[in-house]
């Protein structure tokens, strides 16, 4: 009871707890079937493969919590990737391009948030529009794969810092920011708006501003994800993020965040991203053909959703028995 209470305070849902177990299980299978997984190199490697999806899914979670869709993420990632590939040269290039991509993400988020939160347009359709437009912008900046990501980024962010993988530090940083956000007024408003918009409004919360800020923060997270992607690939590719969207949503869903809003959190989504990544590696280590990755991603997503709906169904069952 006390543990459940503590987890609830940290906004860690039952779905997220299942996801953690699943992650540990897959990781153990992976480690048992592949040598070097537990070495520092192996861990860094795995985290490097996880970090982009984890950060992007973290951002997406914020908008999902307010019960809105946001498909614009891959567009922002694409822009961020080509921006880093074209602007990061020079001594302070890494810093300039970092602020650049965060600003771009915030700008796209602001547009989405204004259209959805303030003008109250349908988020699914609106963000399809902004996503396509963003991909267009990315293509304008860099029409074909190319460009060069500064070594300071490409090497600096994929290696270690003070004995810890930089990717781990980034993920921890995102989680830390999230746990801070979750206990601020804004974080609380996110949940309130997603749970019951009317009650939130009657309670005096600024529903429009909350949604707007959710989209802006999400946009910035996408920007950061694009920055990390650039560090991984070392070059720009306006199409690099094309297949990401499904996996971003898969991460969020596996992590136990409800698409209806108000339930779940970033922690689960990061674990969800971890599961998708480690699953791929585990299957590879087991010698399974690569297509199993997709089959399993889809099935895990469904199972996670079904588990996520259980707590809502259970009390009803209990009551009807009593």
């Amino acid at each position, binding site marked *: 009871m006390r543990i459940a209470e503590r987890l*609830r305070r940290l906004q860690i849902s039952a779905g997220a707890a299942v996801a953690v177990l699943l992650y540990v299980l897959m990781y153990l299978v992976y480690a048992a079937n592949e040598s070097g997984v537990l070495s520092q190199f192996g861990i860094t490697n795995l985290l490097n493969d996880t970090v982009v999806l984890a950060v992007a899914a973290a951002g997406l979670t914020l908008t999902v919590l307010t019960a809105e869709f946001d498909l614009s993420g891959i567009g922002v990632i694409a822009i961020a990737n080509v921006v880093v590939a074209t602007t990061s040269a020079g001594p302070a290039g890494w810093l300039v391009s970092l602020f650049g991509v965060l600003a771009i993400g915030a700008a796209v988020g602001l547009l989405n948030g204004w259209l959805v939160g303030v003008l109250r347009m349908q988020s699914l359709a609106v963000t399809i529009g902004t996503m396509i437009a963003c991909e267009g912008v990315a293509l304008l900046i860099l029409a074909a794969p190319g460009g060069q990501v500064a070594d300071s980024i490409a090497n600096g962010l994929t290696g270690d810092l003070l004995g810890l993988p930089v990717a781990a530090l980034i993920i921890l940083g995102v989680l830390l920011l999230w746990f801070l956000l979750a206990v*601020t007024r804004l*974080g*609380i408003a996110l949940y*309130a708006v997603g749970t*019951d918009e009317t*009650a939130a409004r*009657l309670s*005096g919360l600024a529903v429009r501003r909350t949604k707007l800020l959710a989209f802006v923060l999400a946009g910035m997270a996408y920007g950061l994800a694009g920055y990390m992607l650039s560090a991984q690939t070392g070059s720009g590719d306006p199409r690099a993020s094309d297949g990401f969207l499904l996996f971003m949503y898969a991460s969020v869903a596996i992590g136990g965040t409800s698409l209806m809003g*108000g339930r779940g959190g970033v922690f689960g989504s990061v674990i969800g991203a971890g599961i998708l990544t480690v699953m791929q590696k585990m299957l590879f280590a087991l010698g399974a053909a690569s297509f199993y990755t997709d089959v399993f991603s889809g099935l895990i997503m469904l199972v996670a959703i079904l588990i996520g709906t259980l707590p809502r169904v259970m009390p009803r069952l209990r009551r009807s028995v009593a």
Partner: protein
Amino acid sequence: MATAFQELSLVPTMSVALNLFLPRPAVRFAVLVARRRLEREAKTLLAEYGITEIDPAAPVADLPLGQRQRLEIVRAMFRRPRLLLLDEPTAALSDRDWLFALIARVLAEGTSVLYISHKLDEIRRLCSRCIILRNGSKVLDRAVADMSDDEIFRNMAGRSAVERFLATPSSVRMEVPPAMRAANLIGEGVDDISFSLQPGEILGVAGLEGHGQSRLFKSLVGLQPLRSGRIEVSGTQRALRSPRAARAAGIILVPEERKSEGIFKDLTTIANISLPAIERASPGYLLSRRRERMLVRRVTAEVDLPEQYLPLGVTALSGGNQQKAVLGRALMAGARCLLLFDPTRGVDVGAKQSIYRVMRDFVEGGGAILFYSTELDELVHLCDRCLVLYRNRVVGDVHRAALTQEQILSLAAGHDPGATRTTLVKA
């Protein structure tokens, strides 16, 4: 100004403490919401208002309705507003004295209170001045002390459309098996309810908001499961597990929420009405608009819906005409037993007259109607018999001859047991 809403404005997944202090809970280090401190403060605050049994850390969803109502009231009060608005604050409250003491306290502090209630004794006890609203307009504004109970009731009920409606003799047919007989229905919000409804009868259902009437109506068409009890339709037992099964048995619900459950907001009026008979309008799978019009015209005449509204989107119609369309659809579905849940809510006077007439015509033709209304005068004037619900149970079954608004009100308020005993007629 602060308001305690009747439809509570608490966010169910959040803790009691957070809900109390929304929208700007106290923070530490400039940004972090101080949960622990909030919970401590909430505990003291609640204790100050005489509530000790609520855990401030518990999510609101875990609290029973009565405690949520208290929370809603405390939340409105502790901010010391100059104007406090309480909207039916006792709807889910068992301990009214708690509230009355609090109101006395805030009054002593100089707060003005606007208290909305159906319950006469509360008004008498609390209020100095009373405004009676009916159909959205003010009909009386006077000091409570100057008003007699009778005067208040009369003004609440008023001389309304229904009194001008020519009452016709009852057309109840006793010689046939009941159109619907319910025995010992038990389910969530339905506590051992039995009744029998003859063809040609209008059986009223009265009850204050939230005393089980909505659940009862839903249970009867299978929108909500029943745990036990049996339903007979025209003498044979039927399991009405879904609205489809109910429709097949000739039982049609005209639901409470016209906007979300009555009309199909994106369809034209004609499509709204023809839906149950759409197969009959489509020979060989292809929809014949001519046939559809023909079918619909028959019922629009019955419900007084002007024909030029048929091609319009249904949301372009007034509430009254929308309700006529919903009634027309029920007739179209071949109803033999209509369950009307507050069919005249938000409906203009002319449409009300039409609805009354449709009801009369329907029972004269051998149909049966179970009729809930928030407007007591309708129940008094239209029903052959009226069940009164209190806390999900039938507490009265009053025949037409003995039916008055005052009686219904006192039965529905759950007190005045003397009146209950004199009017309760064995079913």
